[in-house]
């Protein structure tokens, strides 16, 4: 008896806990790089997140365990230690692997649909819903009047 009572809130609590804790967990590969300063380390982490693993294409360089990702992370590290700028490193990768290596796509003619499509669809959906609601409101008024007219004639008949 007691069990069934606490079952619902307990499940809810546990599901929330699982959800929240899952945000904190991530299995990333461990590199042991020593950076010349904190700023370089931050740049490395940033670049690793912005570049895609060419082999495991749904992961960025930071998350992927594949050999090519390890190689590319090493290249990024070496280029940073040599003092290359972020854009030089990105250009280096794009020259060899194409725009696809950018985890965050560039904004150009080809990617307008990708970037603005979702918000565009939401706006279109909003407009459609708005217009449908307006029409429905108009219909309800009409039927009310009709009913009134019908009821009126019934009333007259009853009263006759």
């Amino acid at each position, binding site marked *: 008896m007691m069990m069934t009572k606490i079952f619902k809130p307990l499940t809810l609590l546990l599901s929330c806990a699982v959800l929240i804790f899952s945000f904190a967990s991530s299995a990333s590969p461990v590199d042991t790089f020593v950076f010349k300063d904190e700023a370089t380390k931050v740049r490395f982490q940033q670049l690793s997140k912005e570049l895609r693993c*060419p*082999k495991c*294409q749904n992961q960025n360089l930071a998350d992927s365990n594949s*050999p*090519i990702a390890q*190689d590319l992370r090493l*290249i990024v590290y070496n280029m940073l230690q040599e003092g290359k700028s972020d854009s030089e490193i990105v250009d280096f990768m*794009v*020259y*060899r*692997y*194409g*725009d*696809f290596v950018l985890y965050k796509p560039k904004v150009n003619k080809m990617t307008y649909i990708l970037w603005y499509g979702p918000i565009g669809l939401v706006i279109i959906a909003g407009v*459609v819903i708005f*217009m*449908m609601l307006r*029409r429905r409101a108009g219909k309800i008024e009409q039927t009310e009047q009709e009913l009134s007219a019908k009821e009126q004639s019934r009333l007259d008949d009853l009263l006759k």
Partner: protein
Amino acid sequence: MAKLFRFLPLVVFILLGVLLYRGLFLNPQAMPSALIGKPVPEFTLTTLADKERTVTKADLNGKIVLLNVWATWCPACKSEHPYLVDIGRNPRVALYGINYKDDRAAAQRWLRDFKDPYVFSLFDVDGDLGLDLGVFGAPETFVVDHHGIIRKRFAGPINGAVWQREFLPLISDIEAEIAQGS
């Protein structure tokens, strides 16, 4: 106008259907090579057979050059090997190997055991040439034309169907260009 609105979900459904149908035939893994139209990168590597012999891209002789990226740790390379032996005998192309991030002794043994189809193989132990070519795994095969420009990168093992579909048309095109003097 309001009457046409009722067809909106149908229209959206049809458009989506067309889009998704097309998507069934696309390869989500396909990554077009960024090197197409660019010259073969410069390199200085030893050959696999002879660690005293250094070669550069000037040593890749042939009207149409095929660069095949292979390694002993790559199982698909084993499966494409018989087709490479055929391609190596084909007078229309010159087949060179890039032994990618491999162990020299193991690779030499591999070629001895299974036959060496290449004019020679480059020993790219660190993967530097592979990196410059945008290689992300093995096997991969590049087609280089008579001007030293990369025309195509095929990622995956070659077999009869692949050769017919992906390579032969391009090879014929390049031969036509050579004949026209371009």
